[in-house]
């Protein structure tokens, strides 16, 4: 005769034992899975070039001299030439180094230059913190610092920031402020390498509109039509 098995009662000791064993088993399984996961051979992340985070600067066109043939009146055409050239003159690439104070600005937003620098006696910075401390003869991609052998500020008499285009025009034509005759002015805008930097600013800086040659042609046409200034 089979003795009827009586179920083991769920005493508090048994409950504790089963509970602890379950926790231990769960911990062991989790730990084992973790170790297997950590030690499982896999390909490590490889170094590689960063994705370009700087968008290429958009190129703005400049209208050519022939685009103004429709303006019959020479004075109006002259003003139109200068107003088109003014898109270059009043571009941040040019205005940043034509400040109205002793401190340049930078970026397209024309914020105050960082670090704090000043024009110094020759426009090339204070004698103990020259522009050339940071700016070298060329744009340097590794640091993003722009450069040119002539890197310096325009004279304070040639401050353009805050000026109307008409005032800039009259400045350019005034040899006491521009320090240039009209021939020298034309040569300056067409040939000067620091002026030319405005079209090759490096990094993701927005170049001045058009090309230096197109800008020079507009200035030449403006001078040849009487160098009339906008109001």
């Amino acid at each position, binding site marked *: 005769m089979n003795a009827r098995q009586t179920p083991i009662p769920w005493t508090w000791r048994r409950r504790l034992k089963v509970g602890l064993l379950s926790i231990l088993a769960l911990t062991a399984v989790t730990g084992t899975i973790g170790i297997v996961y950590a030690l499982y051979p896999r390909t490590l992340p490889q170094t590689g070039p960063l994705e370009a985070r700087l968008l290429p600067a958009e190129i703005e066109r400049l209208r050519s001299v022939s685009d103004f043939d429709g303006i019959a009146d020479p004075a109006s055409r002259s003003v139109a030439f200068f107003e088109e050239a003014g898109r270059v003159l009043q571009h941040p690439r040019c205005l940043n180094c034509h400040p109205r104070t002793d401190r340049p600005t930078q970026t397209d937003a024309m914020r105050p230059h960082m670090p*704090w620098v000043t024009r110094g006696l020759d426009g090339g910075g*204070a004698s*103990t913190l020259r522009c*050339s401390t*940071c700016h*070298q003869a060329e744009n*340097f991609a590794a*640091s993003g*610092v722009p450069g040119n052998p002539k890197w310096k500020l325009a004279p304070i008499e040639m401050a353009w920031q805050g000026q109307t285009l008409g005032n800039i025009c009259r400045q350019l034509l005034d040899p006491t402020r521009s320090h240039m005759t009209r021939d020298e002015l034309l040569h300056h805008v067409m040939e000067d390498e620091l002026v030319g930097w405005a079209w090759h600013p490096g990094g993701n800086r927005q170049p001045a509109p058009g090309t230096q040659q197109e800008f020079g042609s507009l200035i030449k046409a403006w001078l040849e039509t009487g160098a009339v200034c906008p109001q």
Partner: protein
Amino acid sequence: MSFALSVNGQAHLVEDDGDTPLLWILRDRLSLTGTKYGCGVAQCGACTVHLDGQPKRSCSIPLKAATSAQITTIEGAEGDEVRVVQAAWVAHDVPQCGFCQSGQIMSAIALLRHNRRPTDQDIDLAMSGNLCRCATYNRIRVAIHTAAAQLGQST
């Protein structure tokens, strides 16, 4: 490509890309780690060295542009100005974390070589390109005045 460099009076021949920043040549190739990498964009001055006596940000100078210059790093700086600056820096306990200090010292030395009696404004003009996140600026300024005074006594 090979580039000949003169660093702290010693000639070196370095094989590297000509566009490598001088900072990395000094630190990684020549083990001159006193010159620090701070921002890498010529904004902080931690990487300041002297090229032909002029302070320059070595993070912003390509190797190819440094070949014709006499380069001086903090390890090779010497002379009266260096001695008094070092003593003043110790006397005023200038460094806090110290990371920017080699750049600060190189700029201070160049300032004193150019101007032996700098005013506060002269110091601000010369040192404004050297940032210190511990803000030890007041101690730096006092130390430069002390160094200048020492320089005046010793000459």
